[in-house]
């Protein structure tokens, strides 16, 4: 079976790659490209959250807080210190990763819905700080004029990131790196320990796995990646304000993860893309938009408890997915 499937998989990969690279030519309107760039940002957010929720089994409703902190950190650093995006992007990831580590150590003793509620509370708290720490965050007015990435030369090619299409390609690279990173982590001993934590903490401890360490690591990586996504967002939209990073956004990202399929790499991407594009389609429905969106979600989640990707896998592989990795 593997022999027959190999060329078919390779063909699929090439087709998908060509389609992805061709998107800016096919959809040259700014409006469409914007949706695709946002899909990329949400793909990173959903992927990073899936490491924590799908892989390690710890529900967080605080993801938007890390996303927002990354956006603010990068925006403030670049505006106040005049640093380039190429520097502040990484600084934002490092900073948010550190915060996630500290918060993780604090809250990951909790489990299940108590953990969900506590992280939700943390998200609200961060929004309150964004709104009220006016000297630094400029409060509800937000921060305007966040600069584009500075021009750079790579292998003799001079490049700028200014147009939507250019952001799209940078975003594509970003998603690809995150997928690679998570794939390596999830298929390693680190990922094994995380699966053990998700499946059975007691058994995991009994065979020498430091479950707290695994949870904190998942929380830290997940937060740091969300911080990077936030930095990318800030320098793409050029304007950030607290309303973008509320608990609603946390829930939105969580729904993408559940909708797409939690414990695979492809699922969250699919969830992110579908749930970024779907609401745009529904604009035509006007007032009814949210109702239709809600019903669509409920139907999907009832019919496909493993998410879209989980269901596709089940159909393609007769015996169902045997492993948890996608």
């Amino acid at each position, binding site marked *: 079976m593997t022999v027959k499937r190999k060329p078919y998989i390779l063909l699929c990969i090439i087709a998908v790659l060509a389609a992805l690279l061709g998107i800016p030519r096919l959809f040259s309107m700014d409006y469409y490209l914007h949706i695709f760039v946002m899909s990329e940002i949400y793909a990173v957010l959903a992927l990073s959250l899936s490491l924590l929720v799908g892989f390690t089994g710890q529900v967080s409703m605080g993801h938007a807080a890390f996303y927002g902190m990354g956006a603010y950190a990068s925006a403030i650093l670049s505006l106040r210190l005049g640093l380039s995006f190429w520097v502040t992007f990484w600084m934002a990831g490092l900073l948010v990763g550190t915060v996630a580590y500290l918060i993780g150590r604090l809250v990951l003793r909790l489990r299940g819905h108590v953990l969900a509620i506590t992280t939700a509370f943390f998200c609200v708290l961060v929004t309150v700080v964004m709104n009220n720490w006016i000297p630094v965050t400029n409060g509800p007015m937000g921060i305007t004029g966040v600069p584009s990435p500075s021009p750079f030369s790579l292998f003799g090619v001079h490049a700028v990131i200014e147009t939507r299409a250019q952001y799209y390609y940078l975003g594509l690279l970003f998603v690809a790196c995150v997928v690679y990173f998570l794939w390596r982590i999830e298929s390693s001993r680190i990922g*094994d320990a995380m699966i053990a934590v998700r499946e059975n903490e*007691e058994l995991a401890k009994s065979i*020498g796995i430091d479950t707290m360490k695994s949870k904190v690591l998942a929380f830290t990586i997940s937060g740091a990646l969300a911080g990077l996504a936030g930095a990318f967002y800030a320098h793409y939209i050029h304007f950030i304000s607290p309303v973008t990073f509320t608990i609603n956004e946390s829930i939105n990202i969580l729904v993408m993860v559940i909708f797409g399929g939690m414990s695979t790499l492809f699922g969250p991407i699919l969830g992110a893309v579908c749930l970024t594009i779907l609401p745009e389609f529904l604009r035509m429905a006007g007032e009814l938009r949210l109702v239709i969106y809600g019903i669509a979600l409920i139907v999907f989640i009832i019919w496909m408890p493993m998410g879209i990707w989980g269901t596709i896998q089940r159909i393609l592989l007769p*015996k169902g997915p045997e492993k948890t990795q996608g």
Partner: protein
Amino acid sequence: MSMLRSENVSMYFGGLKAVENVSLEVREGEILSLIGPNGAGKTTFFNLASGFLTPTKGHVYFSDKEVTGLPPHVIASMGLVRTFQKTNIFAEVSVEESVRIGFNLHRRASLGSILTGGRATRDEDGRIAGVLEELLAFTGLADWRKALVKNIPYGKQRMLSIAIALATGPKLLMLDEPATGLNPVETKELIDIILRIRGDRGITILLIEHNMRLVVSISDRMAVLSYGEKLAEGKPDEISRNPAVIEAYLGKGFQNVSQG
């Protein structure tokens, strides 16, 4: 040499004395069985030794190092690994993946090597694949490797618990009623495997078991708990002749087994 030694350990749950002043030694290389009526404190003693509970009083030593109150994963990493009385599994993963998780303790590839898929990671993966194969064959799980753990028969799940514990490479394996719910054929296989774990792999075994035929046939020594206290300790035939033990727990049935 002593593998595990408890000194006057007690565990009180409120007013309930689940374990009271138990001093017990497990010697290197032996199979020691811990028996006693329901609620005698056997599982609680396992929890105390493996770090899942911290004793109210007393001390626990493993390989002559004090482990009292250390977290379970630290004690496990020192080489003391226990299984659970209730079936405890990684339900949604494959049998193979479950056992691979058991090797986690011995995988050290650095983050850099993991991210680049470097030599160290590949060597480690290869080495683990080999040992994994051997362990699946040893525990009779090779045919089930691809199946999800929740879908395999109960007896295989019990065996998988042992396979996962063995994957950690323990010095002392503590089995909590491994024969519960097994049919006679599976019980015989279990006896065989326990003997080989000790014989071929040199792993010391502490066993809780209600199945007297099993206990008597494989134990070097036995210890009896009753109402949290240690009643007796000795060779199987000594235990079966001990009047206090017969009085408290064993009754006539045991004598028949051990003498017949």
